[in-house]
């Protein structure tokens, strides 16, 4: 089994952290092969940023998959840019707070997560990505949620423990949304 995920958004939206949390968790808690590949534009901020994650039972040949099973779009730019990178039958997670016009593709599933709104409610726009991860994990069951959250505590909370509570809240809220979407689909 090979799962490939492409995560895209603005620089600064936590795209890279999203990918890395998945990877660290998979690498440190499973026997799977894992690769992570980031891709920046020239600008440091304001530009687009995206990353590729592959989690597989076999050695991974192409860490930057052209077509992926999942795309996570944190903004509409990424959504429109990458909508055709999802395999037919695959799933696209969109930050529905900012992605207003859903693209036209009937052969994939869209999971809408109002992550920016959730983050605003929680009180810090920086937890948008944690909400998306929660939704992603709950929907895909790709990794054990508690392990992912533990990784988040370890990697993000080390320097700023004050974020742990916010991150956890966002993650949990995301999971709810993801679970609901999954239930709806089934």
């Amino acid at each position, binding site marked *: 089994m090979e799962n490939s995920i492409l995560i895209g958004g*603005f620089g600064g939206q936590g795209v890279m952290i999203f990918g890395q949390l998945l990877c660290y968790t998979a690498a440190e808690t499973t026997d799977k092969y894992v690769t992570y590949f980031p891709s920046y534009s020239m600008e440091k901020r304001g530009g687009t940023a995206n990353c590729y994650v592959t989690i597989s039972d076999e050695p991974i040949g192409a860490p930057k998959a052209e077509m992926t099973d999942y795309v996570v779009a944190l903004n509409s730019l990424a959504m429109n840019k990458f909508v055709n990178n999802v395999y037919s039958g695959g799933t696209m997670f969109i930050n529905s707070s*900012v992605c207003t016009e859903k693209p036209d593709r009937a052969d994939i599933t869209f999971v809408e997560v109002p992550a920016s709104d959730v983050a605003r409610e929680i009180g810090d726009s920086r937890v948008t990505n944690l909400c998306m991860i929660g939704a992603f994990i709950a929907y895909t069951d790709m990794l054990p949620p508690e392990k992912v959250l533990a990784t988040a505590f370890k990697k993000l909370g080390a320097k700023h423990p004050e974020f742990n509570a916010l991150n956890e809240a966002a993650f949990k809220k995301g999971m709810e949304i993801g679970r609901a979407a999954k239930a709806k689909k089934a």
Partner: protein
Amino acid sequence: MPKIEIEAEYCKSCLYCVEACPKKVIGTTSAVNSKGYQYAVAINPDACVGCAICATVCPDAAIEVYK
């Protein structure tokens, strides 16, 4: 009456104008531009005296001033 025009697409939300305006004319709302920036707007336009301080400090030349 003096007024400012902020081109939302050029604004990167540095908030220099917000900080600089002596009359607290400028602020932000929840609206974002196509790059995702919560751009500055004249939330208190009537207070503007046309001093052009905001435009002067705006690094991205997003503000034009009329008097």
